[in-house]
């Protein structure tokens, strides 16, 4: 008999009771260790967001990169809609019944509950701990906090919370790499990527071309950031052909547009009215369409900066255009004031360079009159 072979005292003896007590203590300790790891993960997420408000994107990217939508769906579906205790109990019962399952069963797993059928024993425990950790966070209202840190705006609904749960599961799965390492050791046939909510990089492992890989990752992270509901990962085709995959944009009216380069210069105070040199003021509501300049002759021009940023026309003198000041407001709240004469000349003569009242210059890329 090897020196360290486990031995058990005869049942019913004081020694067996002592040994059982030690085992119980070990189980409690194990639970503490695993929940502690989960807390560390949550703290790192929360702590990062609090410490450096301008940096968390990178950290969040790292967290998001550990997501895999299919596995999110599988685990999410499994955990959804049941009280925490019940979920854990059901999970344990189900996993107990699966102990005799062939180790290679995980190779053929599908989604949802079936995805758990191939879990090795260590993985089952990981999932149970995750379940417990998520339940604690939900009860403590922390999920809402995390949802806000991740970037969800406004009211956090069930869909957003579900996303956060899956987000945490994804990150936690990565955190438990040590355990998944044990799974591989115990059963090398288990395909971890099919049974746990796996990191993005594992998905990326299937993409050999580095360019495709980079495009996929960028598309994935972009979508994760923009997601306001259930996150659906992009397909490889979508990632490689974003134009084809993007929803159709409404057609613009080219005859009413003029495109200008972004203004460079100092920031000036925003003005939200037509301001004439004689003191006459036209507010923006009277001026009509904020983005359309209407000249005395009825010419119209919609002004945009390159890159799609729209300049709002805040002020325009339609009567005394020689003396008027036109104020544009940039999307970032900067304002540019140009005298109407300059603007009129630009529109009529198609001059591309404009000088603001502060002496800063900006350039129109294209001018079209109606």
């Amino acid at each position, binding site marked *: 008999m090897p020196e360290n072979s486990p031995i058990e005292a005869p049942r019913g003896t004081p020694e067996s009771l*002592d040994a059982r007590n030690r085992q119980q203590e070990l189980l409690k*300790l194990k639970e503490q260790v695993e929940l502690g790891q989960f807390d560390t993960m949550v703290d790192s997420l929360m702590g990062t967001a609090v410490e450096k408000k301008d940096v968390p994107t990178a950290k969040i990217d790292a967290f998001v990169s550990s997501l895999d939508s299919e596995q999110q769906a599988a685990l999410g579906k499994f955990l959804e809609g049941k009280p925490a205790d019940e979920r854990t109990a059901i999970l344990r019962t189900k996993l107990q019944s699966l102990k005799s399952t062939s180790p290679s069963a995980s190779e053929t797993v599908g989604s949802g509950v079936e995805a758990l059928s191939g879990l090795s024993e260590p993985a089952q425990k990981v999932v149970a701990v995750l379940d417990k950790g998520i339940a604690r966070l939900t009860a403590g209202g922390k999920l809402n906090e995390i949802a806000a840190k991740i970037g969800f705006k406004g009211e956090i609904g069930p869909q957003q919370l579900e996303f956060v749960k899956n987000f945490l599961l994804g990150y936690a799965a990565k955190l438990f790499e040590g355990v998944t390492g044990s799974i591989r050791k115990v059963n090398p046939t288990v395909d971890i990527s099919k049974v746990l909510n796996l990191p993005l990089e594992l998905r990326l492992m299937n993409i050999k071309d580095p360019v495709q890989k980079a495009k996929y990752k960028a598309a994935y992270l972009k979508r994760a950031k923009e997601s306001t509901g259930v996150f659906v990962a992009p397909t490889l085709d979508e990632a490689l052909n974003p134009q084809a995959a993007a929803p159709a944009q409404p057609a613009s009216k080219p005859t009413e547009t003029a495109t200008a380069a972004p203004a460079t210069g100092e920031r000036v105070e925003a003005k939200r009215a037509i301001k004439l040199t004689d003191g006459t003021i036209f507010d923006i509501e009277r001026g009509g369409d904020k983005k359309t300049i209407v000249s005395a002759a009825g010419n119209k021009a919609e002004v945009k900066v390159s890159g799609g940023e729209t300049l709002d026309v805040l002020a325009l003198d339609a009567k005394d255009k020689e003396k008027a000041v036109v104020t544009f407001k940039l999307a970032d709240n900067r304002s540019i004031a140009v005298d109407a004469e300059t603007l009129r000349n630009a529109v009529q003569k198609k001059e591309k360079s404009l000088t603001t009242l502060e002496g800063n210059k900006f350039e129109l890329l294209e001018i079209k009159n109606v």
Partner: protein
Amino acid sequence: MDLQTLSSKVRLSRLLSESERDYWVTNLATMSDEQLLKLEAILQEAQELAWNTSMQTYISIANKATAALAA
């Protein structure tokens, strides 16, 4: 806490099965000092159980006897 020593204790503990030993050795690095002390205490208590010590003695004698008989 010396993780190497504790790792050895885990490996030698009769309280644990082989997979349990793997689990604890894998997770030692992520445990807090308090948790490490607790684990060490549990293993120590288990080792000092009367049943374990007498079994240890028995196994040692049996192993020696087996070796002598084989020779």
